[in-house]
């Protein structure tokens, strides 16, 4: 309570008590007068003492912590709290979005993992528990007690959380200023389990750039906070500050200080309301050109490196120079496969030679989720000049949108944009007789625009997601890149030759020469899952769990290959295989733990196979599904494909 407020409080109390005191003084008995005087003095002293203590505690609480990043307004940023009063519905829909909770302070409410004393074993032991409202990790990790680690100790306070939807990462005070350290595991929210860091990525080893120390202060904060300022200084005592944790209003609308100040004037507000003029003190991405609107999203949703070293140094001290409405390429160098690498990208490539293939398919299409800016710009739709992220996505749920907020928040798609409407908005003529275009029944998944033109080939968060580069199914692309074509992603039980023939018959697409006999004779889903590289195996295994795929391709042939993938060296592949097995009726009861020790997983595979072998095989037998004349699995061909597995190193830099 500020001093002025205290003064007014005391004055009001005094004014209210005066008539009573006057009455007592003039009319009350002598003893009562003395008691009233003494009581009054005691009450005044008590009030003064309480007020002083209260003020001291307020001052203490107001001091920002020194051991973690903090929120500091500045550079014209005022935080989402300033927006709420005038834009309550937009503020509420933002709060409902996962953007708002991307970075949170660690509290018993924000942390989804059970900190109940359980021990997580990931390389070392980590005991997670609560001490009051504090969340603590205790570890036998010798790295926590090495001499060069600031404040060596076996207990660390968890102070920050990344994620709120799929999974969470927990960050602890590192002791070097506001630098954070990362616990070496994720908490997978839907699965209610911890998973080692590398298990959640499509990876066997995590590249150095994803290291545990200072990664939040240097990298995560760029996209998971608003107006981040890493404050590296001399690297011994980081002073990381942000305008707001999470991706808040000002990430997309720009700094709001001028907007707030100018719109305190009601005359200005009513002038804007009544004339419909745009308010130039704030950015509304919907009123930007498609290119500039995309740039707002591209700040985070792109494959990028700093434009140059000076930009990187400026960012460290002052935060991003990019503001919504500006050109992103003045801040980032947006990386396009095939372009001459910039000096900073060359430095990255020297440290991480696989940096490009970790993010792009060989033909330059983005292969990870969260980098859709590159994909959208590479799409033919973008060339029209009006196609932007906001063509399909709505960052605020409209009041008349009947969907539950959680459903909208899942992909932040505008109402109706999950289906064909997203495309028919421009391609209306195709909607008149969709079957004529698709050669599939109008109500089947084969007639859904996104199934063919945005197939599930991007990887991230342990699942495949839609590629945002609008494309048409192409066998030739699969032959040159390994990326499964949209037809076979649904018709997984068919060969590439079958697909090439249909594309030729229906669309006149020139059939490419398919030199590899296996690609002519074996179903593409089997080939990708058994013989592909880890990304191809993961995408094939995950897609087998889709209802559309199971309905189109059947599931009987999937069981031997999915059970085999429980032994895959990549945790992410095993995760997808286990999920897809669970989706097949009758197989969910098996112990399909993708992180279990190898003997347990081998036992699970054998149990699945035993159940499958005991069931009758659907007729007729099909050679392209590696079945012999009786419908049994042709072991020799199966093993031969398995031995040909592409074991090159794979990582997806999501």
């Amino acid at each position, binding site marked *: 309570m500020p001093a002025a407020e205290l003064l007014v409080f005391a004055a009001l109390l005094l004014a209210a008590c005066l008539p009573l005191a006057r009455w007592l003084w003039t009319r009350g008995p002598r003893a009562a007068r003395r008691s009233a005087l003494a009581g009054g003095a005691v009450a005044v002293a008590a009030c003064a003492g309480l007020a002083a203590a209260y003020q001291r505690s307020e001052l203490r609480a107001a001091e920002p912590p020194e051991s973690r990043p903090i929120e500091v307004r500045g550079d014209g940023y005022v935080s989402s709290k300033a927006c709420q009063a005038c*834009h309550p*519905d937009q503020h509420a829909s933002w709060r409902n979005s996962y953007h708002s909770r991307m970075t949170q302070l660690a509290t018993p409410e924000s942390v989804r993992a059970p900190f109940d004393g359980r021990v997580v074993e990931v390389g070392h032991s980590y005991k997670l528990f609560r001490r009051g409202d504090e969340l603590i990790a205790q570890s036998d990790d010798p790295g926590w007690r090495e001499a060069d680690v600031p404040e060596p100790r076996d207990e660390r306070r968890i102070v920050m959380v990344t994620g709120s939807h799929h999974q969470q990462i927990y960050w602890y005070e590192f002791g070097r200023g506001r630098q954070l350290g990362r616990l070496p595991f994720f908490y997978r929210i839907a699965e209610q389990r911890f998973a080692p860091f590398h298990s959640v990525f499509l990876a066997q080893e995590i590249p150095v750039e994803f290291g545990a120390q200072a990664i939040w202060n240097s990298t995560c904060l760029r996209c998971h906070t608003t107006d981040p300022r890493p404050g590296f200084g001399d690297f011994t005592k980081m002073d990381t500050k942000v305008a707001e944790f999470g991706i808040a209003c000002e990430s997309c609308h720009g700094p709001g200080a001028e907007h707030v100040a100018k719109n305190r004037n009601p005359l200005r*507000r*009513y002038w804007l*309301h*009544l004339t419909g003029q745009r308010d130039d003190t704030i950015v509304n991405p919907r009123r930007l050109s498609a290119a500039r609107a995309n740039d707002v999203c591209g700040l985070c949703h792109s494959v990028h490196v700093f434009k140059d070293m000076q930009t990187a140094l400026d960012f460290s001290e002052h935060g991003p120079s990019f503001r919504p409405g500006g050109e992103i390429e003045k801040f980032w160098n947006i990386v396009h496969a095939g372009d001459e690498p910039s000096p900073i990208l060359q430095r990255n490539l020297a440290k991480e030679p696989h940096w490009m293939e970790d993010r792009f398919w060989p033909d330059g299409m983005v292969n990870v989720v969260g980098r859709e800016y590159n994909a959208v710009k590479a799409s033919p739709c973008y060339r029209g000049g009006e196609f932007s992220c906001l063509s399909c996505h709505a960052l605020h749920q409209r*009041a008349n949108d009947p969907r539950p907020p959680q459903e909208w928040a899942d992909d932040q798609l505008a109402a109706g944009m999950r289906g064909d409407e997203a495309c028919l908005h421009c391609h209306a003529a195709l909607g008149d007789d969709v079957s004529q275009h698709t050669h599939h029944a109008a109500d089947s998944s084969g007639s859904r625009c996104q199934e063919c033109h945005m197939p599930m080939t991007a990887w991230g968060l342990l699942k495949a997601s839609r590629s945002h580069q609008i494309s048409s199914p192409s066998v030739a692309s699969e032959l040159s890149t390994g990326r499964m074509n949209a037809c076979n992603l649904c018709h997984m039980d068919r060969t590439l030759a079958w697909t090439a023939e249909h594309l030729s018959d229906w669309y006149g697409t020139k059939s490419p020469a398919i030199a590899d006999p296996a690609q002519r004779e074996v179903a593409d889903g089997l080939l990708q899952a058994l013989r592909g590289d880890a990304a191809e195996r993961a995408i094939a295994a995950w897609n087998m769990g889709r209802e559309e795929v199971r309905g189109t391709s059947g599931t009987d042939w999937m069981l031997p290959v999915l059970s085999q993938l429980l032994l895959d060296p990549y945790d992410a592949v095993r995760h997808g295989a286990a999920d897809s097995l669970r989706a097949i009726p009758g197989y969910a009861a098996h112990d399909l733990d993708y992180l279990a020790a190898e003997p347990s997983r081998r036992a699970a595979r054998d149990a699945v196979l035993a159940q499958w072998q005991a069931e009758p095989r659907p007729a007729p037998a099909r050679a392209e599904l590696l079945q012999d004349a009786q419908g049994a699995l042709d072991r020799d061909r199966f093993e031969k494909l398995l031995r040909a597995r592409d074991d090159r190193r794979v990582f997806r830099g999501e």
Partner: protein
Amino acid sequence: MPSDLVRRHLRLGWWTLLVFLTLGLVLEALQGFKIGFYMDLANATRRHVWTLAHTHGTLLGLVNLAFAMSLKLFGDGRESWAGLASAALVGATILLPGGFLLGGVVVYAGDPGLGVLLVPVGGALLVVAVFLTARGFSSRARRDGAS
């Protein structure tokens, strides 16, 4: 004249009470049936100003009755200030809740419609009416005390 004023404010007070208590029922119904036009977060401003219309209207109805009863019980027929106070109170009774009500018909994000501009005018009239009444009865009390 005072008896005319008393009748005017008794009529106005009771009818105002009826109108704005009924508005209260309407608002409760809008709330009860979760009508989006009133309940959606985007319409928070409408909800706010209409609630203010209900409370101010009801309160002003009571003020009108109190004004009438004061004149009836304590007036002596010589209150020269009462005519102006009455006119100001009538204006306030119309403009204050009416402005809030009108301001909620069209809203602009966090701002009510232009009708809300009537509110400060009504507020000023109410201040004038209360000031004149307070001063009038104070003078009367001093006169009574002196005699």
